[in-house]
């Protein structure tokens, strides 16, 4: 019985991860930098008591943030030293953290293209491009990507009328078509 209970608690067990200590250090440095800025970035009003100062609440949050960040750093380093499982700079893991940067750029590229090309054309371009980049080469998958893109535009822009402006490219189209595209696509 005890065996099974430990099984269930296994789901909650926290394992050491590579890069834990370096992340904790980075957060600690960031929190210290924010604490140093508190004088510049918040106001102290003369004649008001401490509790009503605009500076009071951010200071409280930053104090908590810094203390917990420091405790997290110390516990991460202690755990790492104890286990000796990962180095302080696990380069492979740090490289992994940078991997999604490429997709973040895709995302930002998509954001910049929508006001230029319009929501439908950009989505029909970006989703299959991302699918290709992800390693799928079969026409069926690319077609599915285009279909998902079309459905996304139909559901959100045509049906739910979410606020996404028409692209500048639409201005070049004939009147009737342009109005339809601006309103629904």
């Amino acid at each position, binding site marked *: 019985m005890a065996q099974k209970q430990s099984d269930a608690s296994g789901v909650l067990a926290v394992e050491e991860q590579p890069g834990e200590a370096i992340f904790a250090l980075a957060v600690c440095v960031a929190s210290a930098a924010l604490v140093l800025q508190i004088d510049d970035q918040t106001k102290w009003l003369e004649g008001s008591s401490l509790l009503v100062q605009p500076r009071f*609440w951010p200071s409280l949050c930053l104090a908590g943030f810094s203390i917990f960040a420091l405790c997290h750093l110390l516990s991460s380093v202690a755990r790492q030293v104890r286990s000796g499982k990962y180095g302080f700079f696990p380069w492979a893991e740090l490289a992994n953290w940078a991997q999604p940067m490429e997709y973040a750029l895709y995302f*930002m590229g998509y954001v910049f293209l929508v006001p230029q090309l319009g929501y439908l054309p950009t989505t029909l371009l970006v989703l299959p491009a*991302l699918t290709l980049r992800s390693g799928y080469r079969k026409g069926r998958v690319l077609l599915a990507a285009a279909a998902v893109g079309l459905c996304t535009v139909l559901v959100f822009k045509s049906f739910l009328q979410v606020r996404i402006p028409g692209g500048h490219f639409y201005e070049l189209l004939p009147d009737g078509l342009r109005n339809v595209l601006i309103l629904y696509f």
Partner: protein
Amino acid sequence: MEIFLSALETLWRLDVILALLVGAVGGVIIGAIPGVGPAVAIAILLPATFSMEPIVGLTMLLGIYGASMYGGAIPAILINTPGTPVNALTTYDGHAMTRQGQAGRALSLAYSASFFGGIFSVICLVILSPYIAKVAPLFGSRDILMAALLGVILVVIAHRGQTFAAGMLVFFGMFLDTVGMESVRYTKRFTFDQSWLLSGFDLIVVLLGLFALSQAFVLLVGRDRKTQVAPVAGKLFSGMAELFRYKRVAACSSGFGVIMGIIPGVGEFLPQFFSYPLAQNLSKEPQRFGHGSPEGLIASESANNAVPAAAMIPLLALGIPGEALTAMMLSVFYVHSIIPGPALFQTQPDFLVTLYLCLFLVNILVLVVLMMTTNTLLKVINVPGRFLGACILVLSFVGVYSLRNSIIDCAVCAVFGLIGYILKRLKLPLVPIILGMVLGGIMEQRFRASLARIETPLDFINRPISGTIFAIIIIALIAHCVALIRARNKRLLNPGI
């Protein structure tokens, strides 16, 4: 009666029925796809619901929330991969039953237990409502401040083994909420002379980054799963009869789900860890737990599904969200100028009754959908991960860009997406950031409102409610410390553990 009839009339509207259907079916599909989960879906859909009436938007989001937990049981049972994090314990007995050739029985039991938990919590919500309506107006600023503080403390100590990290992230969330122009003295806080920071960090932008975009990154960078799911044979209706045999387990587990759902900060993940050992202790065959015990399956599924309705109680009564998903729903209320809290029960009782009815109907709808379409749903489990990641990335754009058509919002969202990705790699929790942002805002507001009546710090807890909540905070902290000391002593005695 008049209120009930008015609620029924609202419910009979086409847009509400459509929202119910979309929520129920969409939620089941989202839950069945490992790697998506309700948080991603709700974060993406949130801005789209702002143009809907509050009852329509909330019905859809609540439908997704509740239904995804039903759907999450399917991959947990069939391929040993929980569809949503809350289905983690379902894999223990559910997948063991599949290996024994009882996949149909396991699914049927999971659906029935989920249904029981869902309906049980809606009934609790309805029964408790008159009492909540009486008690909620008694909550003053100091009481709500203490309740929010309890939420903050519980969200930290609920992350056993990650207490420091959770504390760090909750305070980070609270700090994020302070950025921008403060609303009392109109002074700038941490804006670094950037005009775009004057309005602070939008909760939805942060949510979309941390939950949706980061998940897109995780899927795009990762590898596809290779799974083969065989069609499920057997009658899916038989689970109800079997559930009746284990009614005590189902009732106790649902009770845990309701109680822990009500407590702010605990979240939907933990109840199963209380109900599962209890079911094991009550069982005549405890040795079967983890090897295909129907009671184990019922314990985890009914506890999970009892949470969504119960989690609405602190949100509706006090305006305090208990976990990330209700924190997201809070913004739907705010956008429509409905302030959840004590006054809601007096001013809009018909809105609340409609919401309860919707929750009730969602459970029935989901059960019907699952009984009829499980074999069709199996196809979505096999959607390739990276393809799914590309779709989530494109969908995240709609969520964030449609808010204010701001490219800066999208850039902020991308940054939080990268932060969320790193946190996920490190297996650190994201929920404390969101709860810190929401509860931090509530706490600051209530703290300032309380100051007029405060002469000494003890005045914060000199009201019966705030004093009681403060006592609960102290008890929770002591219990946490005792648990830590016990775990440490156990480790010292058994270094192998």
